[in-house]
């Protein structure tokens, strides 16, 4: 079950090698995103698009806010 985390957790997990994934459409990602985040829009999240992720490392998803 995915765990809900807050800002401090993001920083801690990132320092320990977590992968950050913005799931908004690419135009929104290009405008502004968190440093080191990669973009996999939710609509494109499938077995193919996740190949760029390392399964051995934690993954953090985020979007704009609580939408």
């Amino acid at each position, binding site marked *: *079950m*995915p*765990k*809900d*985390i*807050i*800002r401090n*957790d*993001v920083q801690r*997990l990132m320092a320990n090698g*977590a992968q950050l*994934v*913005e*799931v*908004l459409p690419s135009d929104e*990602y*290009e*405008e*502004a*995103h*968190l*440093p*080191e*985040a990669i973009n*996999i829009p*939710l609509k494109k*999240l*499938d*077995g193919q698009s*996740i190949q760029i*992720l390392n*399964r051995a*490392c*934690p*993954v*953090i*998803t*985020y*979007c*704009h*806010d*609580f*939408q």
Partner: protein
Amino acid sequence: MSARAAWRLESLGFTEVYCYAAGKLDWFAFGLPMAGKFAEIPKAGDIVRQDVPTCKLTDRLGEVYERCQAFGWKVCVVVNELNVVLGRLRGEAWKADPQTPIEEVMENGPSTFRPDVFLKTLVKRMLNKKVGSVIITNSDGVLIGILYRKDAEERLSRDRIVNELV
């Protein structure tokens, strides 16, 4: 959306998945770094003056006034022990009895802005409201500093000149 994405990743075999539901709005509003096209656009956090003096609710007006005067400040931000903004001292407030506790003369709950607000947007708003300065806090209400409209206008003007040269 981030929660659904996290669940989708689990369904695709990922075993350690986290969801940062507060998202990038929360991140940027806290003054943390931004990447992407908007990162280059000047924002409140770029020119905020972090050396603005602060005082506590129970301080006396006279001592606070002297401290501010010594450093050339006409404004002081009232904060609690966690540096959360509670009020502001400026203008007529300084004319009260020097023994008055700050709590009795301060302006309660002044408007504050986040460091990720675009300067252009903020200057427009400040002009509409006819204010020369605003307090900048992070999303937890913790003081970052004070922003002067004059500084913002100078920065925007300078950037326009640079953009014209490029």
